[in-house]
């Protein structure tokens, strides 16, 4: 390794070390579980069904999310209206919602006694059911449409204003803009978006179980859970964990094969929005934005309406847990930013492409395998109680990496392509380069990545049920409330959790855009 690092620049070496660490973590925990089980176990027919269902639902969810995101992102890119900034931020919220909160919201709107079915009944129309595979897909689109919109919107914003101005100068209509600017951009961005959503849905567990209607919607993650809990079969759990990794690597290979980097060249960052065509496109854009906003914001509003009145009555323990969770989320975000910046910068130089794969690995690491593996590995060295919070912080930082990387990698590549040679010729290096060039140019994706990391860390229930958690985090407290029948307090807790996750995301994201 040391010999291999020679000849690499500092960020490349840092990125290589970080990526190796990630690969070791994901591979190592898997190996630890397999080792504890003394080998990999065989899979039964139900396991294989779970594998197929997982692939199918993840592919469908990813495709729907990406396809629906295109018109929304385009409408948001070319229209300006009061409240647009807030809307863009709000649209990002579902992705960072704790799963259980999102399910509450979706049920409040689309459930049997939800608003949609109440309306349908009033109109004498047949009811729709959120339970079944369609519910799983609906929830996955709800979670991932926001991420897709944001990533595609960033793609639109990354097209230099000069190109749009040139297009206007040449008298391009919407069709020509689509052909020469938008489609090449989409070709570059969409595979990554699809892949990110696909991978998120691969490890989906709670959504599939709560809304899937039954074991028809069994995912690999549930099969892993079963292997651990029902059959006490660590070997089968390790085999299933390995299948998840293989699926991930295969999907990444596919996405890389399809993606073609767009080459728009550098621009001057002039504030300019793409031409906003009039006529029917104006109406359709308005419709698309309203529909997306309604779909994404309504469930959150429903959760808020239910829980908000109870917040003042929440017991003091909840506030202690809140503070603890916020501190942990901030540390996680900082760690995630450092790691993802290292990985993205070394990737941008284009020589170490395997780093991208390593950076995506945390996404498919089964939380159960990861937690159990870490426990087996760390147990001989430290008391698990002492490690509970640090491990949560570290694992959360790592789990957020793939999303941060999706936003950072294209920006870092552009930065390297546009300014890399200039900076090299000026011998701009080290901290000066970071301060003068890298951070200012990457402020937006950095803010986005940091916000995502903080919010995701805030909502995470913890992959580490094996480690002691004597000082519960806010999401754990939410679960404890539910387990003690206190559904009203749990609803209030959910609003609190949602508000803080969203607040953290907003602060980082805004900070990045102002910088």
């Amino acid at each position, binding site marked *: 390794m040391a010999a291999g690092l020679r000849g690499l620049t500092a960020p490349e070496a840092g990125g290589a070390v970080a990526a190796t*660490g990630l690969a070791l973590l994901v591979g190592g925990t898997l190996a630890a579980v397999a080792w*504890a089980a003394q080998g990999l176990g065989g899979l039964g027919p*139900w396991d294989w*069904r779970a594998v197929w269902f997982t692939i199918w639902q993840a592919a469908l969810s990813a495709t729907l999310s990406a396809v629906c995101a295109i018109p929304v992102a385009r409408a948001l890119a070319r229209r300006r209206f009061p409240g647009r900034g807030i809307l863009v931020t709000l649209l990002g919220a579902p992705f960072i919602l704790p799963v*259980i909160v999102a399910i509450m919201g979706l*049920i*409040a709107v689309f*459930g*049997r*006694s939800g608003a949609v079915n109440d309306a349908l009944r009033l109109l004498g129309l047949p009811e729709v059911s959120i*339970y079944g595979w369609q*519910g799983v897909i609906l929830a996955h689109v709800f979670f991932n449409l926001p991420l897709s919109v944001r990533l595609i919107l960033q793609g639109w914003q990354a097209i230099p204003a000069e190109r749009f101005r040139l297009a206007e100068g040449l008298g391009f209509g919407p069709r020509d803009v689509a052909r020469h600017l938008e489609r090449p951009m989409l070709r570059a961005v969409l595979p990554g978006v699809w892949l990110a959503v696909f991978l998120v849905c691969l490890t989906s*567990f*709670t959504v599939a*179980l*709560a*809304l*899937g*209607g*039954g*074991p*028809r919607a*069994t995912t690999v993650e*549930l099969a892993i*859970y079963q292997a*651990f809990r*029902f059959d*006490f079969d660590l070997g089968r759990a390790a085999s299933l964990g390995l299948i998840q990794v293989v699926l991930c690597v295969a999907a990444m290979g596919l996405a890389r094969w399809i993606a073609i980097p767009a080459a728009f060249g550098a621009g001057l960052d002039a504030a300019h929005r793409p031409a906003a065509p009039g006529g029917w496109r104006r109406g359709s854009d308005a419709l698309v934005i309203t529909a997306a906003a309604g779909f994404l914001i309504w469930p959150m509003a429903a959760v808020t309406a239910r829980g908000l009145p109870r917040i003042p009555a929440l017991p003091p*323990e909840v506030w202690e847990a809140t503070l603890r969770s916020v501190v942990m989320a901030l*540390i996680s975000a900082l*760690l995630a930013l*450092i*790691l993802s910046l290292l990985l993205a910068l070394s990737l941008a130089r284009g020589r170490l492409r395997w780093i991208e794969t390593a950076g995506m690995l945390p996404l498919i690491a089964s939380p159960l395998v990861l937690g*159990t593996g870490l*426990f*087996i590995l760390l*147990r001989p060295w*430290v*008391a*698990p*109680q*002492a490690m509970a919070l*640090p*491990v949560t*912080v570290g694992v959360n*930082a790592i789990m957020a990496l793939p999303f941060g990387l999706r936003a950072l990698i294209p920006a870092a590549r552009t930065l390297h392509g546009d300014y890399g040679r200039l900076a090299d010729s000026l011998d701009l290096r080290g901290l000066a380069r970071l301060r003068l060039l890298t951070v200012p140019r990457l402020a937006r994706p950095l803010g986005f990545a940091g916000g995502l990391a903080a919010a995701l860390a805030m909502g995470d229930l913890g992959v580490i*049920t*094996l480690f*002691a*958690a004597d000082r*519960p985090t806010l999401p*754990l*407290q939410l679960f*404890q409330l*539910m*387990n*003690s*029948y*206190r*559904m009203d307090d749990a609803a209030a807790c959910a609003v609190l959790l949602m508000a803080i996750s969203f607040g953290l995301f907003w602060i980082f994201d805004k900070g990045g855009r102002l910088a």
Partner: protein
Amino acid sequence: MKLPLLLAALAATPAMAQDKPVLTVYAGESITSEWGPGPKIEEGFEAFCDCDLRFVTGDELSRVLMEGERTEADILFGLNTDVTARARASGLFAPHGQDTSDLSLPVAWTDPIFLPYNWGETAFIYDETRLENPPASFADLLDAPDDLKIVIQDPRSSVSGLALLLWVKAVYGDDAPEAWAKLAPKALTVTKGWSESYGMFTEGEADMVLSYTTSPAYHIASENDTTKKAAIFPEGHYFMAELAAQIRTTDQPELAQRFMDWILTPEFQAMIPLANWSLPAKLPQDQWPQVMRDLPRPDKTLFYTEDEAEAARGPALDEWLRAFAG
């Protein structure tokens, strides 16, 4: 990577300055949470033990099995009846040393290792304002129209879900597949755990939820809500108990034994029902809280021995999967 350093800094927990012996109790988060029985147990035991009872929250059995004899645990608290076979096979536990001949359980308890501290039975809970004619028997439930919607838990991830699996097996035996085939269309959804199901039920999504015979007590005692009822079936209800056990290799054998001795005392038993919404393992019925005494009781309680349950659950899961995943 700066990770280990930062993690280490964060790990530095303040050392407790005290010389009292520590009794380490591994327990699930529903026990140790502020709203569970944990705080009361800690307070009650420390009042006379001259020790520090320290709860360690987490997935207690998995953890202790992985730690083996080097575990720091002295007591495991909150095990369910469905995991005793696996726990016993580890050889990590010592006998509880209690007389279990006169427990207030509907089943005879002869286990020398695992000591029940509270119990209940699985039941379907309904809201009488929403379901006016609840099924009067399991057979009624199976024959009810399919628009009667129930939510249940997955036996692969949930203790209560597993209990339902054994409940149906105990009632229907070889006819279980037909029973599942009738029940499956009524299942609105199957959730990972009890809390998601129960949340859906209280939100009005489903007419009935798989829960416990004691669930209505919470609504009556805490919310003054008498509309939630358990449907009592003459075919019988499946028994579930929560158990404690001491670790054989404990470094605090005396303290651990004192804790085990305390569990069946009236003091401990009297605080359990309203803290854990469950029935006490050893307390005359006239000393139960009024709300528990008033609950309708099933005439018949079903329970598999450990070996029967262990043998039944694999094939029963297969039948369940076949009916639900078809």
